[in-house]
């Protein structure tokens, strides 16, 4: 974990649960290595609540590594990849710095922030994607050789401090939730598949999820901090023009915060422990590329940190990414067959976004080898669907992070329903054991049964469902319902509470589904379709949407263009020897 060892939060938390519903490991790994759990927006409606956890950085890494080592049919090897091996228009493997060749029918690239990475601390530049690690220098050349265009992005990380040098006494404490909201759906799992990483040191054994949580602490920048930043702006890598990559707006450096929000007198900072067996603290909100000596002054200007010792300085990092519009929605490259991309190389930021892509790329690489059609998750099925569609159909200009406001159907994508929403995919792709699939099915049929029951049963003034919507139900619900699992109860009440809204969203989806279902054949040459407006043809040619729905989301493509595409596709269906029989045919009409 290069940055803050936190998992979840708004939209990301929902995505972690979706990963769990698709057989990914992130949720369980978080549950058993988290040192603090918080349910965000707890005071608000369940539709916008999201779990978040602070993990033990090393435990998280070690447990996941251990899990991979024990995985059947998986061989692991660690080395720096220097280039890809191509044969005709296909990737056939990769080569390491020791000139070992690994051959395969598909290759997935997940370069994180390491591709031609450059770290900045003030005017000081070091090659590397993370402090203490290397930079992947030659792989970029190999991608460019395949015709893949690369651009630069920038991100940053704050300084790490020594805990015993921090004076916590005057700071506001932020404790974890007494009852943790876990990420994994433990209710549908076989018992006993959790295991702990035992470590020496301050805590001898692993821990049950949610016990012995640690606290975070809040502090603020001061007028003096602002003064220090302002008078040293010219030394900041970002403000002296050293960095060309574009950084994320939602994670600005402290320089940006003072400059762009000059009317805000102080900025909130969180001091977050990095683990149980370390005394290192992460200063959330203090990302910077100021020189080291200025960072020391800046840290000392903050209440509680007057005497703090910096263990590792803050830095900004620049790296290569490939605009994800060069990918199919399966995450396979349009330029090079068999080559898949996942994570920050696609312009995203965040562990959750990366994990989701890794899972999808993995599934689709296997399907590719088997010669089957790819798994594509719809925007209405999950945040993962929103993520993949946004990336591959619109691309990004800043590190892309998921927000709930990116989803059209936020109310349908609550975290508790992830298994139900993605059941079609997890069953079809055999991503979960049969026993769990059956339990998921039972769970959601219980949810359905109870929601129907509440709507159909009189509860005095209207149905019990009406009582739930008025917020006065709990005591009146039957005892059998109270005996159901927490998951079934919560999901049932969710569906009842938002019933009208969910129905409306469902209807919208059905209306749009026609377009969502119609796939646009790969080989189409938009520029040769005379009926399309030139501007639309160019955009479609560049972005190559996979479905008519994706095409309709491209800005500037209007409904008549969609109609024309629909007719083209229909034309292809009616004549077996039509324009689509040979993919790649240049002229269409």
């Amino acid at each position: 974990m290069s940055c803050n060892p936190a998992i979840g939060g708004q939209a990301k938390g929902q995505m972690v649960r979706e990963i769990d519903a698709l057989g990914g490991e992130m949720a369980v790994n978080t549950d058993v290595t988290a040192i603090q759990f918080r349910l965000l927006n707890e005071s608000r409606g369940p539709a916008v609540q999201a779990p978040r956890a602070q993990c033990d950085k090393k435990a998280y890494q070690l447990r996941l590594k251990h899990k991979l080592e024990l995985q059947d049919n998986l061989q692991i090897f660690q080395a720096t990849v220097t280039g890809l091996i191509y044969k005709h228009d296909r990737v056939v493997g990769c080569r390491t710095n020791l000139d070992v060749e690994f051959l395969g029918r598909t290759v997935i690239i997940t370069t994180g922030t390491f591709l031609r990475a450059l770290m900045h601390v003030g005017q000081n530049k070091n090659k590397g994607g993370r402090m203490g690690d290397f930079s992947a220098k030659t792989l970029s050349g190999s991608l460019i050789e395949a015709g893949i265009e690369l651009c630069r992005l920038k991100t940053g990380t704050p300084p790490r401090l020594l805990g015993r040098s921090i004076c916590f006494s005057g700071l506001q404490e932020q404790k974890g939730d007494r009852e943790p909201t876990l990420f994994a759906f433990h209710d549908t799992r076989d018992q006993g598949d959790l295991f702990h990483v035992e470590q020496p040191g301050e805590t001898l054994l692993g821990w049950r999820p949610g016990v012995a949580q640690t606290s975070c602490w809040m502090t603020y920048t001061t007028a003096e901090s602002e003064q220090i930043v302002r008078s040293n702006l010219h030394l900041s890598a970002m403000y002296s023009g050293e960095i060309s990559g574009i950084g994320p707006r939602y994670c600005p450096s402290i320089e940006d915060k003072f400059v762009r929000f000059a009317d805000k007198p102080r900025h909130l900072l969180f001091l977050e422990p990095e683990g149980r067996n370390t005394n290192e603290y992460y200063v959330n909100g203090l990302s910077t590329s100021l020189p080291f000596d200025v960072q020391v002054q800046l840290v000392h200007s903050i209440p509680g940190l007057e005497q703090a010792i910096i263990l590792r300085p803050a830095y900004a990092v620049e790296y290569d990414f490939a605009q994800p519009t060069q990918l199919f929605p399966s995450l396979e490259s349009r330029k090079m067959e068999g080559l898949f991309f996942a994570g920050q190389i696609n312009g995203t930021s965040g562990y959750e976004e990366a994990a989701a892509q890794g899972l999808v790329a993995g599934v689709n690489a296997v399907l590719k080898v088997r010669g089957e059609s790819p798994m594509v998750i719809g925007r209405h099925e999950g945040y993962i669907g929103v993520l993949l569609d946004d990336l591959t159909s619109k691309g990004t200009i800043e590190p892309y992070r998921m927000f709930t406001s990116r989803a059209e159907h936020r109310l349908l994508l609550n975290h508790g329903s992830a298994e139900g929403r993605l059941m079609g995919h997890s069953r079809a792709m055999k991503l979960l054991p049969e026993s769990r699939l059956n339990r998921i099915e039972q769970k959601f049929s219980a949810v359905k049964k109870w929601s129907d029951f509440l709507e159909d049963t009189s509860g005095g003034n209207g149905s019990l469902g009406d009582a739930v919507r008025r917020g006065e139900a709990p005591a009146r619900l039957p005892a059998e319902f109270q005996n159901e699992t927490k998951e079934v109860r919560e999901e049932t009440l969710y569906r009842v509470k938002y019933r009208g809204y969910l129905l409306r969203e469902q209807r919208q989806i059905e209306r749009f589904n026609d377009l969502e279902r119609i796939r646009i054949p790969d080989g189409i040459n938009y520029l040769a379709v005379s009926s399309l407006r030139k501007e639309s043809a160019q955009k479609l040619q560049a972005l190559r949407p996979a479905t008519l729905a994706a095409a309709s989301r491209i800005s500037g493509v209007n409904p008549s263009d969609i109609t024309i595409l629909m007719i083209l596709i229909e034309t292809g269906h009616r004549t077996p020897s039509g324009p689509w029989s040979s993919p790649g045919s240049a002229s269409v009409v």
Partner: protein
Amino acid sequence: MLGTTDTIAALATPVGTAAIAVVRASGPAVATLCRAIFGKLPEVRTVTRADYRDAAGTLVDDVVFTYFVAPNSYTGEDTVEISCHGNPYIAQRILEDLLARGCRPADPGEFTKRAFLNGRMDLSQAEAVMDLIRARSERALAAANQQLRGSLGRHMQGLTDRLVEVLAQIEAYIDFPEEDLPAENRQGALRALEELLQATRRLIATAHYGAVLRDGIRTVIVGEPNAGKSSLLNRLVGHERALVSAEPGTTRDYLEECVVVGAHFLRLVDTAGLNPLATALEERGIKKTLEQAAQADLFLWVIDSTGPLPTLPSALEKIMSPANTIAIYNKVDLDQAGAGRRQERFRAVAVSALTGDGIDKLRLAIQNLTEILRTEVGEELIALNARHAHALEAALERLTDARELLRLSNSIELISNHLRCALESFGEIAGRVDNERVLDQLFARFCIGK
């Protein structure tokens, strides 16, 4: 390949005045619609005459309609074609009624598209269909753009910007609960929403007022019994609409007709004669005349030129002015023409409703007056079409829901849901708003940076 779920409706004939206008609807709800409107499901592919009554039961026009059953129709779906009298106002009323009954306004070329997708056209026609759709949508686009470049566009831009602002403020609390955001400003949001509601209502209202362009200039024909008001109406409309007779006082209620004069069209209202010695029945008619007059944009005062100059009731006298009234000396074909005294207050034209003499001059006089009327109404005229009004009404509904929730609860997830739907409705007029714009606004306003 496509199960069409909705029923679409549109004018099938060009906007403007012809002998007849055709409104067409296609889709699964057509049979239900026919039963609701005409009270019966007519024989297939047979022309049937019926009264068209809108959802409120008001008679709109005397129409003929033809019902087609899938797959034997132009689109391959259940279809109804309604032919009404050829004036834009009536056709528009029928279309609006169909929309009110749940139809969706058809996209440009959508009937043809459905025809193609349902296999009603062969492959060789595909290219022609595409070109047609492109041409039609470009024409529609050009027309829409013209409006959007004008005041409608400016208004929509303003509304959309304000809505995005409110939405961004609410979204910030959903997506960034851990940020050091300023305290939620519910009063501020309520105020903003209230302004937005008013602006939307105003826009809808301007549309109704500005609909002079679309619904016509309300023109009331007044005059003494047997001055020839109904004959004049018939002459202007070009066919026998009003029941005319030599018997004075034939028109006891009032009649409405539409006629295009120059760039505008007039909604002509024929009224009961203003008889100073009225019977009780006529009294009622006169009362109606005065009600009609109160809403009029334009008066045509018909004077029998063979008789003495009549006096106007004082209620009318007050609202009629040289800017909105034309005096018409009728019956110039008769021998005694000109015997009556002339009035000096209003511009005057001499005509014979019977022979048509002087009607062209009358048209010109009306045209001159309507031009003045237009500038008086102001340049902020917005001609909302049925689609636009439909979208704005939908937005209004969701904005109202959002305001109620904001007042009574703090369910920001639901408030946001309503606001997003409203934004989508705005988008149907001025172009879709990308999610990205809400985020742009959010990051510009709040310092997000945990």
